[in-house]
């Protein structure tokens, strides 16, 4: 495997074609292959079941063509024993197979595809190259339908009772993408039971799909699909909103298949002896959401419950952190450090550039005339040395390059080869080994972006390779040695907010061995959880909360600051200084990382007689009644829960995620207190996502009435002496309804603190709804875009307790990844200010997403901008925005990019293009 350079010749020559699993069987691959182009490491492997040599004993085509002798037919699966202290299971899930109990005729109809197959159909690297076509005849479709809940929320044989949680959102996404891919106006319809877009920002996405993209949403459970063999369409019959039976034809029907647990995972769980629930998901406790029933084994991702990518990534950090607690003492004990090589100072020397042009076997040399590129390079200004290499990345070539650098006293290096995305680090190390600053280097991408994509145009590819080498060489001549700023990290953390998320984050940091400040503005810890009764799994929240509070109170590493407000913040990652006012006294706390967990509050409606009639209460107030074991509740004849009060409306377009489950759980509790009570839940879409669906099923079985009301019609609650009158329109009956109740519970929105002052203080941004924004929804779901600041709990988005806890554990774990380093080496490619020509206009200060530029506070350049290299990410926004040209970006400076542009044409080869050479002399070259 070490020898494979992923040139792909083996796959090209392999005679055996097999169905490509990655393309969901829609495309073909060879018997020697990479699973998908983004695979890491990018190495080819032989599929032993299909390899002609391994099955029939003849062929060996791949061995013949492999330029690096990487083929090893003897390679076998090896048994390896690892000694570990802890285990994290993240074996995931598999898509539900609709062919097993094939009610839709999926197996025999090419135009009925699963959602995963449809993803491949949309992909530009997929079987149809991103062109949306009907699989049966490659015609462009006019109409596509999505059927939701295939294999989910279904108690029939082979299906699963739970909600798969992700399918509604992905169906909206697929329908939007399909519309974008389509040349004509494509009709898309999603057939659903409830639209469950409960994740952060997903409701906005749903609204966009509905209102802007024009996706049709049809509330109907479709039972069968009738194919029309003549037209290739699929006929779907359903009942529409007005109660009429409809018949529609679709070119493609996408089955939105759910997630389920594969047999291998079940086997694994049995081997490890961890508890699974009746759906074979790993059982966990809401307060320890990543801990399995067996000590030392943790779980994350969809094996725990059906969930989306952000939640899975959050849990993965949480699981790593929880496991890491037990390993905190042995941190760094197995680490080895590398010997440092003294760097030669090349400042003031004229550039002496070495250009190495890689043949990459035949990968480059088979298309590009490599010797011609080398000859051209030799003539370029400042080039002292140029040669070709067979494989520049091989160890012996690396050593040879190191020797050449030393021998020829090179002080700049260009490697024309594959791509810096994969090989920059490797070649930089070569420079370091030769005693040259690693930034005195650049790559010309003549493989991935040249020979591979112009295989049939050898001459043009050679011209292009020459241009790229010339451009890169011109740039490298202007490279300077760069220093990487080093940052000391204060070995302590600060958590703002003493609710469940904040407490958990503080606890996790302390368990990892770090001194932690926990700030709470109220006089006691617990936040909103102080009012909560039970989790959806039935765990008592008060008992668990007080245990949690006790554990942080007695932890010596945690300093709890009650009645405390934050008044100001200085510093940045590694060395924050937070100024607090604690019981009216000012204090300053120093810390290396910050976790924001300031929570949210419950919306208080000014409608539905709330505040006017004490029989109308909010969901949280109802929980509090249950916590206090209020006995009056038993006496009510009729209770009504009204969903989405203050959520999913114009002013507050997001879904509050927890209220559906909370209402169901509380409705069940009422039924338990008084089985005779009439309990109604009036809803728009019921969203007891994931395994919570069981609770919904239970509630319906027990006789709780769920009524979908028409959101666009009048809805009112009127106070009468003996009862509350609730008037609304039922969507199924399409008529006005009245319920007389003694109790109305408003399932009210979770509202964040808009314009939270911590935002500007810690440079964390809030979205339009007022929730703090993560750096990346999927890849960095608990990081703020500002380094060293993390978010968790309700301040990030509405979420139930188990998710707040896993997110808090994740945030603390992400914080620990910084703290554990003790010092950080930042990148050298950062911006700097030429203060002499700075005009102090402040564009850079304003525009930087990372707060790297500030105004110099004193001295000769007072008021001029300066860059904190530790905070700078090298994006160059400030550089491009600076009108005065005072800002520069090391490694991508203006003159360096200009040099590349100016080297576009070969000066010695006039007339090769339609270049306007005459203009060049008078001005452009001065930049070099």
């Amino acid at each position, binding site marked *: 495997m070490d020898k494979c350079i992923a040139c792909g010749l083996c796959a090209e020559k392999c005679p055996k074609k097999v169905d490509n699993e990655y393309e969901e069987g829609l495309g073909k691959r060879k018997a020697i292959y990479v699973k998908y182009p983004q695979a890491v490491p990018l190495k080819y492997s032989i599929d032993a079941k299909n390899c002609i040599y391994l099955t029939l004993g003849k062929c060996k085509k791949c061995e013949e063509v492999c330029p690096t002798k990487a083929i090893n037919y003897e390679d076998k699966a090896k048994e390896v024993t690892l000694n570990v202290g802890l285990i994290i299971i993240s074996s995931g899930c598999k898509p539900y197979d609709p062919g097993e109990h094939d009610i839709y005729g999926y197996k025999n109809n090419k135009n009925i595809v699963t959602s995963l197959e449809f993803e491949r159909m949309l992909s530009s690297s997929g079987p149809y190259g991103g062109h949306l076509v009907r699989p049966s005849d490659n015609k462009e479709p006019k109409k596509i339908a999505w059927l939701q809940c295939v294999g989910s929320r279904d108690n029939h044989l082979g299906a699963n009772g739970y909600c798969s949680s992700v399918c509604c959102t992905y169906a909206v996404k697929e329908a939007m993408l399909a519309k974008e891919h389509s040349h004509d106006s494509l009709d898309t319809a999603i057939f659903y039971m409830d639209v469950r877009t409960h994740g952060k920002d997903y409701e906005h996405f749903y609204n966009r799909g509905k209102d802007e993209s024009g996706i049709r949403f049809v509330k109907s459970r479709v039972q069968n699909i009738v194919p029309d063999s003549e037209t290739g369409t699929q006929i779907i019959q359903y009942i529409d909103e007005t109660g009429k039976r409809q018949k529609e034809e679709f070119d493609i029907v996408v089955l939105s298949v759910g997630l389920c647990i594969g047999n291998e995972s079940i086997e694994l769980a049995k081997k490890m002896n961890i508890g699974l629930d009746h759906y074979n998901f790993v059982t966990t406790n809401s307060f320890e959401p990543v801990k399995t029933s067996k000590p030392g084994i943790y779980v994350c991702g969809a094996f725990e419950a059906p969930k989306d990518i952000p939640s899975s990534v959050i849990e993965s950090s949480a699981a790593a952190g929880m496991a890491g607690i037990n390993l905190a003492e042995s941190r760094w004990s197995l680490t080895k450090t590398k010997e440092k090589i003294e760097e030669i100072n090349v400042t003031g020397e004229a550039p002496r550039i070495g250009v190495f042009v890689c043949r990459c076997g035949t990968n480059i040399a088979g298309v590009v005339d490599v010797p011609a590129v080398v000859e051209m390079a030799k003539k370029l200004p400042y080039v002292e040395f140029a040669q070709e290499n067979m494989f520049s990345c091989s160890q012996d070539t690396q050593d040879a390059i190191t020797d050449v650098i030393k021998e020829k006293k090179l002080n700049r290096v260009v490697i024309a080869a594959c791509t810096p995305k994969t090989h920059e680090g490797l070649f930089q190390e070569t420079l370091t080994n030769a005693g040259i600053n690693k930034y005195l280097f650049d790559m010309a991408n003549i493989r991935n972006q040249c020979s591979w994509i112009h295989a049939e145009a050898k001459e043009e590819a050679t011209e292009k390779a020459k241009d790229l080498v010339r451009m890169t060489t011109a740039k490298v001549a202007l490279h300077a040695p760069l220093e990487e700023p080093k940052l000391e990290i204060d070995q302590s953390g600060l958590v703002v907010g003493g609710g469940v998320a904040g407490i958990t984050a503080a606890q996790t940091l302390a368990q990892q061995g770090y001194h932690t400040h926990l700030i709470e503005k109220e006089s006691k810890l617990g936040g909103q959880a102080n009012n909560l009764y039970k989790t959806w799994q039935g765990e008592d929240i008060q008992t668990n909360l007080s245990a949690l509070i006790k554990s942080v109170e007695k932890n010596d590493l945690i300093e709890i600051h009650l009645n405390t407000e934050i008044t100001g913040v200085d510093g940045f990652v590694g060395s924050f200084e937070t100024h607090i006012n604690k019981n009216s006294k000012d204090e300053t706390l120093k810390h290396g990382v910050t976790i924001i967990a300031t929570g949210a509050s419950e919306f208080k409606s000014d409608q539905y007689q709330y505040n006017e009639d004490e029989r109308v209460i909010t969901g949280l107030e109802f929980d509090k009644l249950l916590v206090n074991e209020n006995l009056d509740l038993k006496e009510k004849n009729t209770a009504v829960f009204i969903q989405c009060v203050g959520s999913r409306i114009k002013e507050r377009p997001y879904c509050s995620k927890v209220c559906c489950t909370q209402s169901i759980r509380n409705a069940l509790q009422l039924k338990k207190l008084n089985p005779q009570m009439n309990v109604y839940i009036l809803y728009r879409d019921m969203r007891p996502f994931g395994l919570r669906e069981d609770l919904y099923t239970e509630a319906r079985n027990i006789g709780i009435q769920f009524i979908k009301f028409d959101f666009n019609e009048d809805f009112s609650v009127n106070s009468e002496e003996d009862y509350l009158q609730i008037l609304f329109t039922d969507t199924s009956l399409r008529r006005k309804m009245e319920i007389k109740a003694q109790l109305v519970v408003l399932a009210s929105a979770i509202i964040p603190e808009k314009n939270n002052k911590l935002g500007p203080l810690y440079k964390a941004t809030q979205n339009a709804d007022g929730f703090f924004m993560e750096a990346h929804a999927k890849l960095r779901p608990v990081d703020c875009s500002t380094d060293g600041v993390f978010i968790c709990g309700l301040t990030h988005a509405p979420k139930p307790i188990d998710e707040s806890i896993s997110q808090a554990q994740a945030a603390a774990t992400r914080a620990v990844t910084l703290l554990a380093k003790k010092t950080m080496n930042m990148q050298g490619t950062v911006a700097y200010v030429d203060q002499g020509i700075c005009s102090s206009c402040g564009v850079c200060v304003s525009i930087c997403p990372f707060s790297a530029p500030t105004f110099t506070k004193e001295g000769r350049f007072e008021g001029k901008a300066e860059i904190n290299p530790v905070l700078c990410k090298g994006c160059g926004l400030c550089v491009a925005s600076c009108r005065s040209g005072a800002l520069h970006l090391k490694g991508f400076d203006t003159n360096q990019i200009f040099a590349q542009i100016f080297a576009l044409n070969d000066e010695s080869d006039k007339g090769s293009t339609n270049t306007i050479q005459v203009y060049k002399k008078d001005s452009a070259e*001065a930049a070099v």
Partner: protein
Amino acid sequence: MDSYTKKIRELASNLLKDNKVDMVIGFNQGTIPMATSPQVARTPEQALEFVWNSNCSINLANYLSNQKGKIGIVAKGCDSRNIVTHIIENKISREQLHIIGVPCTGMLDKVKISSSIDGEILSYSEEGDTITLKTKSSEQNIVKNDFLASNCETCTHRNPVIYDDLVADLVTEQKIDDPFKDVRKIEEMDSDAKWNHFENLLENCIRCYACRNACPLCYCPTCFVDESDPQWVGKGQNNIDVRTFHFLRAYHCAGRCTDCGACEQACPMDIKVRDFTRKLNKDALEIYGWEAGLTLEQRPPLDTFNPEDPDEFIK
């Protein structure tokens, strides 16, 4: 207009008398008709030379960059908007300023007037909307609104947006149905027509940089056209360099330009350089709902990083 002049003189001389400011920036009569000249008054007596009429189109905010001390300044609508931009961009602080606000009724287009009058204009006076011009051989009355500078015709911010004193009651703002008609006309041209339009537009540019020097937004210690490492743009007269200068100057004004017209007024070759800046003003308004210099609370849209930036243009 005499009442304006009187009030400006009174306010300015009092400010200087009471030592509330070190200087007041305003206009004096100038040496030829229809050409007022900016003046800095440092004594109450000098303040009595101040005048106000429909020829005070120069943008005085230009004189504020990096000034020290307390300054009084006479400011019509556009000047005040540029003062706002100056404050936002740290060229001057609000505390340093005493703004004498002038509700403006529009400035005159001198070129338009002189081309409609025979002979050299020897004297100028105005009374309300009537402007009286004398040449050697005749005396003519013209209606002011027929000869407004084109930026004043479409101006919707004639009143100063910030001020400490006002020289008169605020005027009613103009309601303009289609303020960017001229830009739309260019936008609607096919690419050949557009190419010709801009080629003709810049044909006569002599690169004197008067437009840049008149613009209050251009205050960099070293302008990019003067920079030599890297040399952003060639210094000669070749077409690409001329265009580069104009394009980049316009980009530097994006989201900041108040359409005060100083650039065009200053141009000795009568080049309609506002064709560039007005297109960007239109975009700023349509994409970001932004007009420059109306608030101290917010930086221009292109100065800020906002992940929820409207991104329609990228599709």
